[in-house]
């Protein structure tokens, strides 16, 4: 309000002292035109988005009018090219959900820990090296990932899938198990009296180590004995998608962790907390909503990826038995749209053409909702942190 009064006064004074009326009017029109151009440019992206929404939803509605909702969402029989076509996309939705969930399991723990390392643990010189390397992962084209998954990773899974899985599981589980043993040993020995504590600590550590070693050995034997019949399956797609979503999760989480601020960390250290306590109990909970936003961005990246899943997920429209068996081929929404695009012509097949738009509309709706949720979370956290 003050600015406007000041501006008006200034222009009035300026105009009366230095400019003629014509120049004044010209100046004002110029400012108005400039504003209009900027607003148009800024809103063009909004207009583009509205157009995309409109055209996709407009062409998706005829499918639902022709075939109804029930078969699309509940049936698992996908035979669009036959004369008595069946458009059951439930298996395809499940496939999308499965590979996305798998990608999140791969990307989020690794990503959040990487972000934690980058923001709090690594020395500055190492950070300067590691961060660009992680961001390089985002620069690799998705078709290169898909090619790698099809030509290198799939045969690898078929030949040595079991041993790969067991080695991967051991690499992840062994440090966690050792930490767990140490923590549990401390907790158990705390229940004993002062004199008995060292003995309690040693004996509990020995017993727990034995149990953990046995469990890890069993896991190694189970996973090592797995025979993967077909390397193009949900696991392949999940791992590659996880690697693709990793840079997004790391970047946004690291931003969230950095924005927590030094005061919180310094206060925690000043109260005598160790670094681990500070990180796990103060910093991460404070950055919780930012990390959640990062996870949602990773989800959106994984669910919208087309080339990788089209080449490497097997494209079999069925729900694996049991539903969490990632070693079977699945089909995703994006791969179906890409794969069926050629035949599904507006002229030659009506429902077959519109069903692809129906799938696109579902993907758009999901992306929209996920974006909205992420935005609300970030806004709520910003309000709380002040």
């Amino acid at each position, binding site marked *: 309000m003050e600015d406007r009064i000041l501006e008006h006064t200034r222009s009035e004074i300026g105009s009366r002292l230095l400019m003629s009326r014509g120049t004044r009017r010209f100046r004002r029109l110029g400012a108005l035109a400039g504003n209009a151009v900027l607003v148009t440019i800024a809103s063009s992206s909004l207009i583009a988005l509205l157009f995309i929404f409109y055209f996709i939803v407009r062409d998706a509605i005829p499918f639902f009018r022709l075939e109804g909702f029930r078969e699309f969402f509940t049936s698992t029989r996908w035979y*669009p090219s036959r004369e008595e076509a069946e458009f059951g996309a439930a298996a395809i939705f499940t496939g999308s959900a499965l590979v996305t969930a798998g990608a999140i399991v791969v990307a989020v723990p690794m990503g959040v820990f990487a972000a934690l390392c980058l923001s709090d643990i690594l020395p500055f010189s190492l950070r300067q090296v590691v961060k660009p390397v992680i961001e390089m992962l985002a620069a690799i084209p998705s078709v290169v990932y898909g090619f790698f998954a099809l030509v290198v990773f*799939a045969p690898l899974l078929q030949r040595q899938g079991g041993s790969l899985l067991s080695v991967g599981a051991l690499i992840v589980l062994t440090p966690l198990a050792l930490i767990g043993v140490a923590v549990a040993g401390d907790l158990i020995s705390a229940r004993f009296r002062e004199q008995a504590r060292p003995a309690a600590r040693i004996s509990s550590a020995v017993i727990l180590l034995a149990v953990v070693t046995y469990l890890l050995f069993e896991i190694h034997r189970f996973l090592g004995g797995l025979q993967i019949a*077909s390397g*193009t399956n949900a696991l392949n797609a999940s791992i590659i998608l996880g690697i693709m979503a990793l840079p997004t999760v790391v970047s946004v989480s690291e931003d969230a962790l950095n924005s927590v601020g030094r005061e919180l960390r310094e206060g925690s250290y000043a109260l005598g907390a160790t670094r681990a306590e500070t990180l796990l109990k103060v910093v991460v909970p404070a950055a919780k909503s930012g990390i959640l936003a990062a996870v949602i961005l990773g989800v959106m990246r994984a669910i919208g990826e087309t080339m990788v899943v089209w080449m490497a997920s097997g494209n079999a429209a069925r729900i694996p038995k049991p539903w969490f068996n990632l070693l079977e*081929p699945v*089909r995703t929404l994006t791969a179906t749209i890409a*794969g069926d695009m050629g035949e599904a012509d507006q002229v030659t097949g009506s429902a077959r053409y519109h069903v692809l738009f129906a799938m696109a509309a579902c993907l758009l709706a999901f992306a929209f909702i996920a974006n909205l949720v992420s935005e609300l979370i970030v806004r709520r956290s910003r309000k709380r942190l002040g």
Partner: protein
Amino acid sequence: MRGSRIITALAIVAIAGWAMVPASAAAQEKIIIDGSTTVGPIAKAFAEYYMSMNKDVNITVSESGSGNGAKSLINGMCDVADMSRFMKDSEFQAALEKGRTPVAHVVAVDGLAVIVHPSNPVKGLTVEQIRSIYTGQVTNWKQLGGPDVAIVMISRDTNSGTYETFESLVMNKEKINEKAEYVGSNGAVRQRVQSTPAAIGYVGLGFVDRSVKALEVNGIMPDMNTVSSGIYPIARPLFMFTDGYPKLGSHLYRFVTLYLTPKGQEIIEEIGFVPVTKY
């Protein structure tokens, strides 16, 4: 200072303009070809040969599937549509509605080879056995004389002519089992089969090489003679569709009738298909 900068800018613009002139001065006739990944190699080889014989023609070949090729021809986006199946009634209708008359030229004959991994001991199958594999009735190789492994079925995506041929000549209108994996091209089928010991797939005859093993179908091995004489049960003609019959003597006409010349048939044989005539 400012003067030298202006001169530099003008020089760059002049050189760029001069570099672009030769490309536009040779007014080239263009032929755009789109369609099947099976016929694509033939079109590409023909294009290379034809362009080397005639410098004033520029031929571009894309391979986006028979369905896409027909669509492009109907919409006027290409001059020649490669298709590994005949045009459907609905596609013909659409073309006529848009004022185009598709004319078919049979450039070669293709056998659909059923391939397995080289380590698979099975030598041959009947059409009924292949059908029972793909409908999911037979699920293990040991039921067919092979090792005790579950069969991994590889199929082409539904937008390909190869799939349509397989569906009409082998599947006999029955549904392919939901466990079948779908890939996007002949090359992808071969890649999957050569790296998966338990896999079975189908490709155009031209895509069979040492890395996979072709099976006998009904006792007949797919090769040049059995396919061209029609003895091999899974064989199909390969088409190039044009809009109307091309004007005699035009580049399009000479390109599209290359398959009748000895050199064209040599090219077709080199790629692994069967020429329509014995030259």
